[in-house]
């Protein structure tokens, strides 16, 4: 997979996922360009971690399509999925950072990397993400609750609400949004 802005490493179209009667994702469509860092925000239990697990193939969506590096994830068998996973680094709660970087992936998926960390260490994680983007042209999808931390390293933010994308854009775009949920989310995060 070439590392330039013309290729799209992750392309999600109309993604749906339910657990029993609980609909977690109701038709999410998202594109992550090569070398781009996207922060996925939202309430707890809003489907952010589920979105990452669907991208990496740990769970199977109920509908929609997920393409990573041009390959349809839902149609791959286990060996083919492992080949894709070697090109995508995944960190759960800071577990396996070294392992994920050792394979020199082309894109990293972070699941709440700064959860439970002090502000200094959280800032260091943010600096690491920025450094990876600059030096290794590595893109990232970061699931986080830390709005202001995400502002420091993300190129774009996506706010999930009740299984759908409530807002998408830069930090300034979301902060100036007139949507009630977006305004409430950003007002609480700045307290």
């Amino acid at each position, binding site marked *: 997979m070439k590392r330039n802005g013309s290729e799209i490493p992750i392309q999600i179209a109309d993604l749906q996922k339910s657990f029993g009667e609980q609909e977690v994702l109701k038709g999410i469509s998202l594109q992550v360009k090569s070398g781009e860092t996207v922060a996925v925000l939202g309430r707890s239990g809003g489907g952010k971690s589920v979105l990452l697990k669907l991208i990496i193939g740990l769970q199977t969506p109920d509908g929609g399509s997920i393409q990573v590096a041009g390959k349809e994830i839902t149609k791959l068998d286990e060996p083919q999925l492992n*080949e894709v996973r070697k090109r995508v680094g995944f960190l*759960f709660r800071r*577990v396996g950072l070294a392992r994920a970087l050792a394979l020199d992936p082309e894109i990293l998926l972070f699941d709440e990397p700064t959860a439970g960390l002090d502000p200094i260490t959280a800032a260091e994680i943010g600096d690491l993400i920025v450094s990876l983007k600059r030096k290794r042209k590595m893109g990232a999808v970061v699931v986080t609750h830390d709005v202001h931390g995400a502002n420091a390293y993300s190129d774009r933010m996506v706010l999930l609400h009740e299984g759908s994308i409530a807002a998408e854009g830069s930090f300034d775009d979301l902060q100036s949004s007139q949507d009630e949920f977006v305004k409430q989310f950003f007002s609480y995060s700045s307290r």
Partner: protein
Amino acid sequence: MTMTHLPMFVLAATASGAMTGGRLLDQVPMARNFFVGVFEWFGDLGLFCVRLIRAAITPPYEFGELLRQCDAIGSKSLTLVALAGAATGVVLSLQTRDSLVRFGAKAFLPAVIVFSIIKESGPIITGLIVSGRVGAGIGAELGSMKVTEQIDAMEASAVDPYKFLVATRVMACVLMLPLLTVVSNFCGILMGWVANTLSEPISLRLFLKTGSRPWSSPTTSPPRSQDHSVRIDDWDRVLLPGNPHPRRHRGSRKIGH
């Protein structure tokens, strides 16, 4: 539980539920769910075993992790298994001695100890000790890894968790349990000899010889004036004094105190 007992149990459970206040027809879904749950459990177990076997026999192999698990399961359980086997041998020796003396079969004590430990007690005790210690530890370790999403992280890193976590532990148990059983048997027989020697000295060599061949010559000859020996025929049937020999016997021999 046989197949005839299972439906009877379900009907009894259903009827008792009806008698406690529920309507009988309301208990039918409960019985159906019970049957479905049982079949689902066996089905999940079968699928798990198939996936486990496939992960164990297909390359690449996790030899490093297998060795680490052999150390954790085998060598770390050695002391406990040896102590349990030793205790079994001592208890067996002390408790069976009195019974055998009562029937004049004290000479069979080594054979009783050796055969019961090797055939039954040793494997059972080893299995209980290892399943209690190792099984609980494996369950706790993998459970905490699942809760902290380490297994998901492993799978996301293109590492097969069944191959790395499950197959290595199962293979380590398969390899280590027979070896631990041998250790348990050894300690049980050795301590059985020690317990026996404390009351009636006997060399270890004679103890093992008598234990491995219970039909060999008696260790001591009974005094002629008090011949309370029990005779056994060539089919190892005990012939009590005064009883007529069976019609088809070919001979008999004495065993003494």
